[in-house]
């Protein structure tokens, strides 16, 4: 099972230029997108790197809040109509979002809004999201209230697919309870994500764990070694865990 995941990571993720990150509200899409974009930029396989923040439904904790940090790592951030406007009541996307999507030299991570309503905005960029150059991933957190079961998580993904007309091609397991996450939490999420993948016929690509909270060297994490993905909580202020 893990080999299958590993194989798909190689076969899918590294070939395609655009990766769309979708998922339920609060599944951890944005944290994953930021971490994933940093990892991809580090590979230096493309001339340019971009993170397109298409989340126009969530007012707080958006990836464009981390613009400066991402730019220092060579990742351009696109999304809001005004560069530093993160508080607009009716946020709009700037036309410049199309730039990286059109540029064949640019590796693009697309951070979509939560649920089907948030992902709906992907439709206006559909012409760029051809199967040849696009992977669509879904982040799943089985500790989230509304995606506690495989059936609930499958329904969320089906709703996102219906709203966007895009097929989710891989899962990112991100089952956590923030600072209360344990190796057991990650393992439980891994098992449920595998069941979800089985049900949908798509691979589980990553099992995220919060850095500094879960120790990946923990023996129980050994079966996950091919899929473990370290997640730094860039968007969460430290005082939130006081």
């Amino acid at each position, binding site marked *: 099972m893990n080999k299958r995941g590993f194989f798909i990571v190689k076969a899918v993720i590294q070939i395609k230029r655009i990766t769309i990150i979708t998922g339920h*509200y*609060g599944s951890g899409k944005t944290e994953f997108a930021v971490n994933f974009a940093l990892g991809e930029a580090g590979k230096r396989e493309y001339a340019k790197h971009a993170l397109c923040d298409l989340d126009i439904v969530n*007012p*707080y904790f958006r990836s464009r809040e981390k613009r400066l940090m991402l730019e220092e790592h060579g990742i351009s951030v696109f999304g809001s109509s005004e560069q530093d406007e993160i508080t607009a009541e009716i946020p709009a996307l700037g036309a410049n979002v199309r730039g990286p999507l059109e540029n064949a030299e640019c590796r693009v991570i697309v951070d979509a809004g939560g649920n089907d309503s948030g992902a709906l905005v992907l439709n206006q960029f559909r012409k760029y999201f051809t199967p040849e150059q696009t992977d669509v991933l879904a982040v799943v957190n089985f500790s989230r209230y509304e995606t*506690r079961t495989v059936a609930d998580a499958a329904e969320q993904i089906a709703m996102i697919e219906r709203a966007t007309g895009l097929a989710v091609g891989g899962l990112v397991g991100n089952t956590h309870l923030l600072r*209360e996450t344990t190796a057991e939490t990650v393992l439980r999420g891994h098992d449920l994500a595998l069941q979800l993948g089985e049900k949908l016929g798509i691979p589980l690509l990553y099992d995220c764990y919060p850095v500094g909270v879960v120790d990946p060297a923990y023996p129980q994490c050994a079966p996950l070694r091919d899929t473990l993905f370290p997640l730094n909580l860039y968007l969460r202020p430290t*005082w939130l865990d006081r």
Partner: protein
Amino acid sequence: MANGNDKVLLKGNEAFAEAAIRGGLRFYFGYPITPQSEIPEFMSRELPKRGGVFLQAESELGAINMAYGAGAAGGAVFISSSSPGIALMQEGMSFLCSAEVPLVALNVSRGGPGIGGIQPGQADYFQVTRGGGNGDYKIPVFAPASIQEAIDLIYESAELAAYWRNPIMIFVDGIIGQMMEPVTLPEQRPFTETSKIRDAKPWAITGYGDDDTKKNVVKSLRMQPDDLERHVEYLFEKYRRAEKELCRVETQDIEDADIVLVAFGTVARIAREAIEILATRGIKAGLVRPISLWPFPYDVFDKIGSRTKAVISAELSMGQMIEDVRIGVGKRLPVRLINRTGGMIPTSLDLADSAEKIYKEVN
């Protein structure tokens, strides 16, 4: 539904809505406004399937008056909004207090004045503690600092509102509405069936039923001045009792601190980290975290020891709670302000730096 002991990861707004349903609050009336729109969204999906009623009002004015009507008829009602929406509801709040109609209301506050912005603020402190409605009335206000505390307070407030026959306000800033925390949810308290309201709330407007001699009237209009005066005095008798019974506060090291910070909600969380930073600089800081904003815990300031040089009110406003802090401290110690407003939030380092500066000035 999760069992009582299962930890789940919930966004504040979802947790508030779920806590209200589990608390037995069967009716929700509201109008969407950021940063709490997830609440009406959640309620529209969940309440009808669980035997409750969700109704989107045409405005916040409509919502508060629907709450007045449903509450007067004995329904257990929850409403929520954000700052400008709560402002629109103030007239209704005054009516509910006068007519003694229970309600649990939630303000997920944002920056103001006016339409302001959608980032977090605490500048509705006066609005919720003093009230923007007319006449003499009081509303107990709880200000949780975590999602779990908010769940527990909303759940408890469902009973408190019915007991006190008064609205209870829960006051959080947008950060608490939008952030996520692992929480434990309480068991579902059953909704009161319509046929049982007559027994549970003998004062409610339930029609004549089988007894055509007894008719309840729930109203705020009292045309005779002596009658109105008696009514207001009766209400204030109740409020004086509430001042004793509903006052809640948490303290940390205030007996022997160099300085004492006073903060509620999100700012109290930041203050805890700032206090750790100050300790590394050799300054011992204590914390007063009011949980009830009305009644305000004035007496807690008597516990501040002789070592303390200043009391600092830390707020996301231009300084509103500081007026209550001054009443509590009296002339014993200087009271200073550290603040951000407009949706800006201080970092723990900002807070520690400002507190250190004040300490050096007064020491």
